[in-house]
């Protein structure tokens, strides 16, 4: 593998590092009483938001419909995902150094699968919070569930929820795309020689 492809592979691995600096996903909530909006930020290791207290404010609003309070401690994922990311970064760099084309492919496929599992897990949580409602909740709308959108927007009573991947996810996307490119380009070089 040519040196620039190896460098690209290392870049692909390192681009996962954005996950440590930016959230993976953002859920925006908008309501008449919240002109400034409420943002919940999902990181690989924590939950954050547009202010320090966004989780408390989410929970206050959610308790009226009987949604369970969201606490970062209840997500085991937040503890082990950082290690998975580090694993991919380290192995990606090693793959780049070794310059083995097949390893590039395995790495990309594994990363894509991990990403998909992550999104499925995310949806499972959304579903769980949105449907597991306290039957003694003050506000009960027959038949209504409150699963926030995975991607795009959805109206939930007075809130308009919008869910979008954030810069962190773009790091994963870049890692997959660049890794894929390295795989494809290295093939063409082999063919042309």
């Amino acid at each position, binding site marked *: 593998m040519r040196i620039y492809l190896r460098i690209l592979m290392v870049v692909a691995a390192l681009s996962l590092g954005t996950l440590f600096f930016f959230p993976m996903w953002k859920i925006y909530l908008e309501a008449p009483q919240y002109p*400034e909006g409420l943002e919940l930020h999902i990181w690989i290791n924590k939950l954050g938001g547009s*202010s*320090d*207290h966004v989780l*408390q*404010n989410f929970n*206050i609003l959610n308790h*009226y419909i009987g949604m369970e309070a969201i606490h970062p401690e209840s997500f085991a994922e937040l503890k082990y995902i950082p290690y998975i990311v580090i694993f991919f970064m380290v192995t990606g760099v090693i793959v780049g150094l070794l310059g083995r084309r097949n390893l590039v492919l395995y790495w990309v496929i594994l990363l894509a699968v991990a990403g998909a599992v992550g999104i499925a897990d995310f949806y499972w949580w959304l579903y769980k919070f949105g449907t597991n*409602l*306290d*039957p*003694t909740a*003050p*506000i*009960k709308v*027959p*038949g209504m569930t409150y699963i926030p959108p995975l991607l795009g927007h959805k109206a939930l009573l007075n809130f308009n929820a919008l869910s979008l991947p954030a810069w962190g996810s773009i790091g994963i996307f870049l890692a997959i795309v660049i890794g894929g490119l390295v795989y494809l380009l290295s093939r063409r070089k082999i063919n042309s020689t």
Partner: protein
Amino acid sequence: MKVIDRKFKMTAPGIGVLFTLMAGVVLQGCGGGEGSQKSDAVDSEASSAVYVPPGQHDEYYSFLSGGFNGQVSVYGLPSGRLLKVIPVFSQFAENGYGYNEETKPMLMTSHGFVPWDDLHHPKLSRTDGLADGKFLYVNGNNTPRVAKVDLTTFETVEIMEIPNSAGNHCSPYPTNNNEYILAGTRFSVPLDLEKGGMGDASLEEYKDKFRGSISFIKTNEEDGHMELDFQVLVPGFDYDLANGGKGPSEDWVFFTTYNTERARTLKELGASQNDRDYLAAINWKLAAKYAAEGKAHEMPANYYHNTMDHGSHIAKSNVIKKVRYLLPEECPGMMYLIPAPKSPHGIDVDPTGEYMVVNGKLASSLPVFSFSKMQKAIENKDFDGEVNGIPVFKYESVLYGEVKEPGLGPLHTEFDNKGNGYSTMFVSSEVVKWNVKDLQVLDRIPVYYSPGHLMIPGGDTKEPNGKYLVAMNKITKDRYLPTGPELVHSAQLIDISGEKMRLLLDFPTLAEPHYAQAIAADKVAPNSVKFFKLGENTHPDAVKKESDVSVTRNGRTVKIKMTSIRSHFTPDNIEGVQVGDTVIFHVTNLEQDWDVPHGFAVMGANNSEALIMPGATQSLRWVPKQAGVYPFYCTDFCSALHQEMQGYVRVSPRGSNVPIKFSTGEKRPVPPAQASVN
């Protein structure tokens, strides 16, 4: 009445009197009952000039004093919309100020708890001579006090009582970098230099025993609280208003005086005998130097200094027992007297710092004094005698010139950025625009009715903004729909950007605004606190988690540490209180979101509600007098289930054996079979 007639005949130019009489006749002739039908036609573009579309913000914050309501009203300009009422010297049942345990010490004085005052003059804190938007200083006139309002929270954070003062009217005047706030006494009183404070004297001894005082208060804004550094004990006149110099006159502060006759009774006559009273000029820098260099004497005193702790929101009082003072006769060069037309009211210094305008309310002309001429007169010792060892200038040697026939009853002047002065005329009910250099009257506009102060944003500083002028009027009559005998006061917003003044808006104001200040919104708005951080709440009785609430008895006092959050109190069932107990509810608002205050009120409380901002704690004292089950509830509509935000305190007869018990919610029952019911 004859007296007043005589006064005006003596002082007002004949033409002016004739003019007002004619105007009176014309107005009578119109006879219309509605203000809008008068000839004060407002041009059609005025409405768009003051229209701030829904959801948009005003260009300026303005702070209007409330006079006899002891508060400050905050209005947006140009819309004239009321944004807030800040309680300062008065109890305010609306948010518990002066009623709850935390703020009661703010209103303590050497006379005990004084829950009211007459608030006249707001002044913004300054950096390099310009308003910096950090603090607002205000005076309490009746029981002499100076207060500081923090403009990040719009809350009163400090109140200092002024000893040796009576009627703290010419107050508080900040120097250009907040080195000092100056506060002069309106009433002179007999001072007992041995024992301290006011002494006993016969009123017949006024001339010999009565003295005035001018207080020099250090602001210590960067790292501390206000501190009364020293006072200057001045002749026993009445000190009316003050204003600081700027530029070349930066080291000086000027005070108008009246009753230099030192009359003790029927002052409307007695204080109007001398043709000239004085404008007192004090070199504050030199005074501070004299005080620092050991010229100051010390006397016993007894005055309160109340400060609000930033973290706990608890006010505490310090009683200070001595005060330093300077005697002008021992401090050469510190104080001079400029003869001014009889009983002057406002003193205003133009943006260049060269011209001092004295608004002689009974005078027929508006004298403008020159600072450079004053400097020269000091150099040449161009004096005309002295009073109590204080040199008096010759009128002509410091006079720049006079504005002839400006109108009747000039009270106050402010300036624009184009070299013009604007003066209010109380008697002829108008604002008059004149050029400071050539002293010619340029324009006049009627206001409704009888203006006192006027305010141009920055109009008292070296950089006025020449866009708006607000006239604050003493008489309202027919300006608004009638509301019985007691009416609000009226203010008019006037466009001063053009050659001609243009009336834009008429808006009602609370109680009696005297002076006002305004500042560009972007100097204040970005620093406005949205809520208090619970983590930084250092109140000793705050509880930050629902699991930490408690109800404890200590003798006949029951302390309830409780929390509020949408939409419940914890605890909301309380038992074990007995008739006659002193119950103190310490309520912490656990919210950490913008604009979610919770109120707290309990039946039969002899004070007010508590209104607790997110992250803060307030304490309300309650002594139940009869057995029963007393409801308490949230008074500020906080959420969709606000109406459910309520609880009960059981009060048992004295000596009963009901134990202390408290709870919120019941143990969770097994969920019913069906998840949702149609």
